[in-house]
């Protein structure tokens, strides 16, 4: 059982018997008032998103999803192909179900495919993945207004902000839970 204070981005809970994943989370507490946990939740089956505010003392059932270790193979249109590491069986998950996870899928990545009533509805990623920067600005441009971070695109097409010293072609570690730059990988 989870309590409201366990809420965070990526947590999977059951609401009205459906599995939901927290896609946005913000803690609020108006002066001397009670803690409020504002969330956006995505229904992992229908893909629909709902806004919910929870209070201290609210509890949730964790979404008990079957996890199967699989490897990401390739993408075909909006279909992502995975292979079961034990049975070599291949499955397809569509882009909508993957949501933000698709940003971090790189060929041969080991993930956990999540199944709800035998239907694959998403993946659990490792907390950190390494991706190559394919596009970013040269840092010394005199644009001191955004001096601390600059935009970049990695090989999956995902866009994020990275430190100025990281150049194109370099490998970086991204925290998949926040989608943020973590460190540069020395090769």
């Amino acid at each position, binding site marked *: 059982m989870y309590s409201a204070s366990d809420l965070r981005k990526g947590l999977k809970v059951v609401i009205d018997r459906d599995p939901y994943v927290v896609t946005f989370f913000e803690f609020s507490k108006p002066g001397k008032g009670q*803690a409020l946990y504002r969330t956006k939740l995505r229904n992992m089956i229908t893909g629909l998103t709902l806004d919910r505010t929870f209070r201290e003392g609210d509890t949730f059932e964790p979404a008990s999803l079957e996890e199967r270790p699989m490897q990401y193979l390739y993408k075909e249109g909006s279909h992502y192909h995975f292979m079961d590491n034990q049975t070599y069986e291949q499955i397809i998950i569509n882009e909508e179900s993957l949501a933000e996870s698709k940003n971090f899928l790189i060929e041969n990545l080991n993930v956990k495919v999540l199944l709800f009533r035998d239907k694959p509805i998403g993946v659990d990623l490792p907390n950190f993945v390494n991706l190559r920067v394919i596009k970013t600005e040269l840092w010394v*441009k005199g644009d001191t207004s955004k001096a601390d971070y600059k935009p970049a695109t990695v090989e999956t097409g995902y866009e994020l902000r990275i430190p100025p010293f990281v150049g194109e072609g370099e490998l970086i570690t991204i925290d998949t839970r926040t989608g943020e730059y973590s460190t540069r990988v020395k090769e």
Partner: protein
Amino acid sequence: MGYGKDARFVKGLSRWSQGLYIFSPRPLTQTETGFVALAFRPFPSFVPIPRSPGMGDETVIINSSIKNWSLVRRKTALRQRAKILQAIRDCFVGQGFWEVETPHRIPAPAPESYIDAVPSGSWFLHPSPELCMKRMLAAGYEKIFQICRCWREGERGSQHIPEFTLLEWYHSGVDYSTLMEECAVLIQTVATRVGLGERIIFCDQPIDLTTPWEKIPLRKAFLEYAKTPMEEALKDGSFDELMVRDIEPRLGKKKPTFVFDYPAERGALARLKIEDRTLAERFELYMGGLELANGFSELADPEEQRRRFDRENENRRAMGKPVYVIPERFLEELGEMPPSAGIALGIDRLVMIFLDARSIDEVVAFTPEEL
């Protein structure tokens, strides 16, 4: 990295090497050969850095080869934070306030329904220095301020961190309306001293710091922004939701806003209004939708204070939270406290507003997750 003839104005130049990055308040230009021209004399196109204002000619040197990038990149913000703290201290000392220090570890925090203290052995880390500072008022200290670390369990988000820095000041012989004026003067003065001037940008919104600031009774804010009477919201339990969803985001947009006269039950240590006993003489300051400070005319009646602590403890018990021991010494001395007012201002949030930071993580050296 190459440098032009003006580079001799920069201190520590001999330590420069490849891989060193600098954050300069002046535009940098790149020559065709790939060298960087550093112009430390004013350019005609000079624009101040919005996210690190007030740096003047100071250049913060950032070394990119250091692994802890999250800490390295906060260097400019933490430099600014230090300046803001210094300006606050100067401002208080100039107004005849004394800086005081009270223990961080206390046996009995003030029982309040929604403030949870962090246990430390059989005692607690203080959630605010309020009780000890009021005991000082009672002992005849008239104008005191403190900048200290405070702890509140379970408070973590982009505007909250469980260990945070609070500025509290207390002033004998004044009430909450004087405190609002003092607060406005303080923030205005500090903004000027750190080089921000009278207009700041926070979350893409310009905020005009010139006084008078906006003042709105909370009751009116409820009617205007939440379209619900405040009393009704209290009764049906939607008070906090409406505050967060409908009211707070609209406060302090063009000018900082004081919201005042809170429901009596939302001011466990505040004096009630003589003309309306359902309201407490309490205010909150908002800038750009962010709650920055909370102040009130202090309740100085020990018996009434005891009843309120008991009621707060009952609420806590009903919610299944730990009940706190009544701070007896505080109550004993409270009767000797002259009419006073006190205020708590979140330093981390003030720095956020001044530096236009979106998250509290950007203005502290370490978050708990980084330890």
